[in-house]
């Protein structure tokens, strides 16, 4: 007999987005259970060093900032792939979320009146902070933004916000079942009723029945061989959504590479390095970014900087090393004090992991897989397409404020803002609905999961998980990386399809009781390969270049054909994903130039109003669930024209 738990709200993932939703539901008096692969404070949210974007406009270099400017930066950053209404909701609520976290104990850095020295575009400058703003939340510079907007706590923003959030969750008595992995969503084809989960302590299976279920499991970076992501970022939540056969994943081909992963190990050093005045250097000791991007230089958006770095390496300007070619990140001029306080995490990482002292030496860096813009496709309420009662938020979701490229500091902010907004919708839903589920239904899913486990343990196959993982990581890194083309993507498609077949022939050698790491990995690999296939198929089909998706054979952004979001579903029994397309959302800011990156654009022929007129109908046709408020109601049409100077 396995245990059955019932709860109003079930959340999978105890990072910032999941816990923030839990907090909202618990405040309404709903019962909440959070399942997590690891203790909540160890979630990958903790690793975000840099900060959270919110248009508070307190710092001198943030003067004149407002949510419209933030909204505009986000839409531009997304290369117009974002849902603009969601970007608007996000930008409007980010300042509230930052202040709320201050209320709950986050020690945000504050404005200190008077002169302070900064490095801007390689030059030392003195900026005088407004004495009248002293003591308010301050901000630092991040890529792709018009203003200094990134709120931070020294070098550990993710850590301190996650600790404040988890402490709040503990205060509210939210139950967390850690070392617990959701393996399957219980549903009847129209409604989600909970999950079947496996304990990573003792290996037992449990059923969780809920009114509302939330996927907040973060990204799926580990499908790539080289990634900055934590080892738990294997897309477990996206996989169970895809496995329903009905819920789509959005824009899976939109994958971000961060310019500064250290070589080797691929640990991220924050964009704050360049935000605070660090720059990139080639093998001749030359600062090359201003040649490519005269305006934003080292602080263009991440997709652009990553691409420029690869371009420069291809010109033979990289530094050869036993771990591959790289470039240098130079922060030496910021000085020992700055590096050991505001960038201490960077200092520690360099010293401990590669033995480089960034006060006296340059840091070896290269672009590395970093963020998944794609994820479980949800409407603006966070409600998943095609399955009532299933929600998603944070990196796991495609909400979709990032489109084809996310700005630094926007994802960590998204976790708490989406947590707040989606949390309300989840709570509304759970308050209205009743827990009705047949035991036959939940037993059916339990049987499927235990059948799969038995299959793996008694298999006569000969494939091993580490081998499949390595082959998957390699093909994605090489063929579905920063620069993509039809030939490489066709090959990736073939290789991955074969890997999927092989994944059904895995032999788990040990039947060890308890957590059994071999079985845990074997249970995940098939789903990871499926995710990899949605990325490769989406990338092959999208015959344009947009944001982080760069096709060498289709170098222009094509707004006539491709101002659409990819939806990938995995029909039951199929051996490949099925793609459909929907409009990106209501357009307020017409598609235009980003001001960096320099790609050409094929303009849209139809008018904005005729595009917008079809959004609701076409999204619903693709599975969108009715939103609480009509779509478009939060868009504040045209406000950016007045407020963005």
């Amino acid at each position: 007999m396995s245990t059955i738990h019932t709860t109003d709200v079930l959340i999978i993932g105890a990072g910032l987005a999941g816990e923030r939703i839990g907090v909202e539901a618990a405040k309404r008096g709903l019962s909440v259970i959070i399942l997590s692969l690891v203790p909540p404070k160890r979630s990958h949210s903790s690793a975000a060093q840099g900060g959270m974007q919110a248009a508070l406009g307190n710092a001198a270099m943030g003067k004149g900032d407002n949510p419209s400017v933030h909204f505009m930066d986000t839409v531009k950053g997304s290369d117009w792939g974002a849902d603009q209404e969601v970007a608007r909701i996000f930008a409007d609520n980010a300042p509230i979320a930052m202040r709320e976290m201050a209320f709950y104990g986050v020690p945000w850095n504050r404005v200190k009146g008077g002169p302070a020295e900064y490095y801007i575009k390689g030059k030392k400058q003195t900026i005088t902070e407004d004495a009248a703003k002293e003591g308010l939340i301050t901000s630092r510079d991040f890529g792709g933004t018009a203003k200094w907007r990134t709120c931070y706590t020294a070098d550990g923003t993710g850590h301190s916000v996650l600790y404040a959030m988890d402490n709040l969750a503990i205060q509210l008595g939210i139950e967390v079942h850690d070392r617990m992995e959701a393996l399957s969503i219980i549903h009847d084809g129209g409604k989600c009723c909970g999950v079947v989960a496996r304990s990573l302590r003792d290996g037992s299976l449990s059923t969780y029945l809920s009114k509302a279920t939330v996927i907040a499991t973060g990204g799926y970076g580990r499908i790539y061989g080289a990634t900055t992501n934590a080892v738990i970022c294997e897309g477990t939540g996206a996989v169970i959504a895809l496995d329903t056969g009905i819920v789509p994943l959005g824009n899976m081909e939109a994958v971000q590479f961060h310019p500064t992963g250290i070589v080797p190990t691929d640990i991220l050093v924050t964009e704050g390095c360049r935000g605070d005045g660090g720059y990139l250097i080639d093998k001749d000791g030359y600062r090359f970014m201003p040649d490519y991007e005269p305006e934003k230089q080292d602080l263009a958006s991440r997709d652009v900087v990553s691409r420029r770095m690869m371009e420069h390496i291809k010109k033979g300007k990289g530094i050869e090393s036993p771990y591959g070619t790289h470039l240098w990140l130079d922060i030496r001029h910021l000085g020992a004090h700055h590096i050991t306080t505001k960038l201490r995490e960077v200092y520690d990482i360099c010293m401990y992991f590669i033995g480089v002292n960034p006060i006296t030496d340059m840091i070896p860096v290269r672009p590395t897989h970093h963020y998944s813009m794609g994820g479980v496709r949800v409407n603006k309420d966070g409600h998943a397409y095609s399955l009532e009662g299933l929600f998603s938020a944070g990196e796991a979701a495609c909400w979709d404020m990032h489109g084809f490229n996310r700005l630094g500091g926007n994802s960590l902010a998204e976790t708490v803002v989406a947590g707040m907004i989606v949390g309300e919708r989840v709570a509304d839903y759970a308050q209205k609905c009743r827990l009705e589920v047949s035991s036959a239904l939940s037993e059916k899913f339990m049987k499927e999961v235990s059948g799969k486990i038995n299959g793996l343990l008694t298999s006569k196959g000969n494939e091993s998980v580490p081998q499949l993982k390595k082959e998957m990581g390699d093909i994605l890194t090489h063929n579905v990386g920063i620069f993509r083309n039809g030939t490489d993507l066709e090959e990736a498609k073939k290789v991955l399809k074969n890997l999927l077949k092989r994944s059904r022939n895995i032999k788990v050698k040990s039947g060890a009781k308890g957590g059994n790491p071999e079985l845990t990995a074997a249970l995940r690999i098939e789903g990871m390969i499926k995710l990899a296939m949605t990325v490769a198929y989406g990338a092959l089909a999208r015959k344009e270049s947009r944001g982080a998706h760069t096709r060498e054979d289709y170098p222009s952004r094509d707004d006539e054909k491709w101002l659409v979001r990819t939806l990938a579903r995995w029909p039951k029994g199929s051996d490949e994903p099925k793609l459909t397309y929907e409009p990106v959302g209501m357009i307020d800011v017409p598609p235009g130039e980003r001001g960096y990156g320099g790609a050409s654009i094929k303009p849209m022929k139809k008018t904005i109003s005729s595009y917008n007129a079809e959004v609701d109908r076409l999204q619903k046709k693709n599975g969108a669930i009715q939103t609480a408020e009509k779509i478009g109601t939060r868009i504040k049409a045209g406000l950016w024209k007045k407020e963005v100077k």
Partner: protein
Amino acid sequence: MARKITFKIFRFNPYDEGSSPFQQEYKLEETPRLNLFSALNIIRDEQDPTLMFDFVCRAGICGSCAMMINGRPTLACRTLTSDLPETIELFPLPFFKMLGDLSVDTGVWFRGISERLESWIHTDGTFDTKSVEKLMDNELANEIYEADRCIECGSCVSGCATANVYPDFLGATGLNRIARYMIDPRDMRDNEAWFELVSTYEGVFGCIGMMACEDVCPKNIPLLDTFSRVRRLMIETGLSSKSTLLKTHS
């Protein structure tokens, strides 16, 4: 010539009735800049898929991978084999519940500490979405953050003589957590409330001052200073003329 490293790793599966503790040997050729995250994963991928250990961020931030490395509790992810002798002995952290091999249950213990210390902001206020944040001096924000940097890896309590004898001892991590809230003006608890919470043998007066915690803290949190400060404040509070605390406690 690359070294051949011998790993002697503690093995035990508490969920398997037939399992009893022993040390297992694995050999690995050393490569440049090899750390224990990579080494343990290579061993598991290539030699023994049953080996249990915990890593999450593998970047020294999440606190998951503390273990006893040649007798010293520290983070495995940022330990380079080149800094160790040819034989590396790995044991799980003592003090915590064993889950299997090098994996221990730190999560449940740390949640218990948060609940005991009520480690959240205590306030009568409510958050107003329309008003600006309360002002705070940047120096104070930095000071709070300094104490907030603990990653709950468990190294300090594993290296602590008192904690290994008194399981209820709050440990350096718990006392540091208290110090963090003490200096936070948003938390309305007063000195008398702190006194009730930590002026006990399980609290600040249980420490016998060996300060292994400070030696092993991977985040270099100044625990000695923190302890002195909290103790001094507690004694002052107890002795203050207005207070009846020491009387009720004597």
